[in-house]
């Protein structure tokens, strides 16, 4: 057996696996796209794999503008805006807080740093549901229940453990001498953070942005419980559209609405996958 033909065989095997795996994940997506482009009449009579005979964007327009989400019939567009208004501040705030806390824990090592870190780790593993009722009470006490600020605060709080963990571990990989040198050079807490640590953080910042933005965008439970009817995110509206009980199920609209809701995280993943892997793989900074 020549090793060359063995290598070719191995390569064929790898590609075969990749193609099958890709098909497995792409098939549902394909079904969703073709279904969303058909009329209900066509859906009823053709196979789910059939190519639409006369593709139409009607279902998409309905999903965006006029599908009924409970009592209102304004489509997903309102939810899109709400989701953006929740995601952007919650992502930025949770990342900043996580970065500063991780930096403080790994470089300044305040008394009890180990305990704080331990508590955060444990908190990261407690199921969310446990906190919901007490948090509802607490937020209504301070008047934040059913408000944009409230849902942002909730996302920031629940994002803390994972963000702190992420940043602390990344900073633990930076040489401590770098920090010592900056202290000898006269830097204080914030100056060192802003001038030395943040400029070294892009790889992990990218990872954090991806994790937080997609996670917050995909959230359903917190949006449903805490956001209030005026601020419901896209996921909640999607659920309302798909699960609306009146009339026949508009599969084409449901498919279009689902793709629209998933589009933002999908685009984030596709655009940043390369950076994500690079950020995860980024080890200590050598200098």
């Amino acid at each position: 057996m020549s090793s060359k033909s063995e290598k070719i065989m191995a390569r064929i095997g790898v590609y075969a696996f990749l193609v099958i795996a890709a098909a497995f994940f792409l098939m549902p997506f394909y079904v969703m796209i073709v279904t969303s482009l058909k009329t209900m009449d066509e859906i009823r009579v053709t196979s789910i794999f059939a190519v639409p005979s006369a593709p139409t964007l009607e279902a998409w327009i309905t999903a965006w503008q006029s599908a009924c989400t409970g009592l209102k019939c304004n489509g997903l567009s309102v939810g899109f805006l709400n989701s953006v208004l929740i995601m952007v501040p919650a992502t930025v705030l949770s990342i900043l807080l996580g970065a500063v806390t991780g930096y403080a824990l790994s470089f300044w090592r305040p008394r009890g740093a180990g305990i704080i870190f331990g508590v955060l780790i444990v908190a990261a593993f407690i199921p969310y549901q446990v906190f919901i009722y007490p948090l509802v009470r607490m937020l209504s006490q301070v008047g934040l229940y059913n408000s944009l600020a409230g849902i942002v605060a909730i996302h920031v709080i629940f994002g803390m453990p994972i963000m702190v963990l992420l940043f602390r571990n990344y900073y633990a990989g930076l040489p401590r001498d770098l920090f010592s040198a900056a202290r000898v050079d006269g830097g204080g807490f914030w100056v060192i953070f802003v001038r030395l640590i943040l400029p070294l953080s892009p790889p992990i910042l990218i990872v954090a942005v991806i994790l937080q933005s997609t996670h917050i965008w995909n959230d359903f439970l917190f949006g449903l419980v805490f956001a209030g009817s005026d601020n419901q995110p896209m996921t909640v509206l999607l659920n309302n559209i798909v699960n609306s009980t009146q009339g026949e199920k508009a599969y084409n609209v449901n498919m279009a609405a689902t793709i629209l809701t998933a589009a933002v995280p999908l685009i984030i993943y596709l655009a940043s996958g390369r950076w994500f892997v690079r950020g995860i793989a980024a080890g200590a900074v050598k200098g």
Partner: protein
Amino acid sequence: MAEVSIENLDIQFGSVSVLKDLNLLIEDGEFIVLLGSSGCGKSTLLNAVAGLIDVTGGKIRIAGEDKTDAEPKDRGIGMVFQSYALYPQTTVEGNLSFGLRMANMPKDEIQRRIARVSKMLQIEPYLKRRPAALSGGQRQRVAIGRALVRDADIYLFDEPLSNLDAKLRAELRVELKELHQTIGKTMIYVTHDQVEAMTLATRIAVMQNGVIQQLASPEDIYERPANLFVAGFVGSPGMNFFSGRLRAEAGKTVFAIQGGPEIDVTDYAFAAPLGQGGEAVLGLRPEHLFVEAGNLPLRLPFTVSVSESMGADSVLWGTTAGQKASVRFGSELKLNPPRGTEMELGFSPATLSLFDAKSGVRL
């Protein structure tokens, strides 16, 4: 004036005590080397002087002022790290100016200082480069430069040369010595390389387990080690140790090597008058034993096992009265005796050291 006075310094990490009741007075303009094996607390002591770690007890005074709890930047220090610790996100120039910009120094003053230091260290060609694009030696020069632009009174070095190859290390060592002579500032330098210690220091502090074993000039450390640890730590190959007994008889002092000859050590400069005598250790540096005994007054038998040539010098390894011994001599003697050769070595009483066998202290 920038003398550093360390008084009764205690440092603990949790329950581990790293430095115990340490006292060290460093004069203005001195080049003090902290020498010791790995983990003995050299970096800890240096970091305490820099203010980078909390001290458990004791005081650190710089130029007479109590700086025990002062911030690193308020201590008038510049520091060079073993890992260089250059800021990777900025250029060499950015590295040099980092601290000055944080102190809001005027631009032209920053430029002036960078120009002066980069000329002194010959790093002008790399000012626009990032640290990642520099060789190890260049990086270390930049790291030294970053400390120098601060115009500090005291410079701290933590094994600055240990990541470099032997040739570069020797070059930079000489440069550092010149630098000290030029600027005349107080320097505290951590190393476990005894050549660096011997060549650079005005005084060496030999440390073991968080305790300074001896603080003296390189010559004293080498010629008159204060105890067995220092004697064994400094010198390569290490000092020969022969155990035996000391006794005084008829106006003479004699050291009887275990299972070997008696040596007349009457002319040895005892630190304190010898009382009863007793178990002791005789120390002799390999280069103070001579293959051609000539008219040297004292003699030792020696059986060769291995000979080693190290370029300019050669070393014979073997035994004296069953105890391990080595002799160093110039290679020009062209001596290569076969295994088992018996010979007689000569030495002078001025070069030997005697230690108490129990306490290890120099007699």
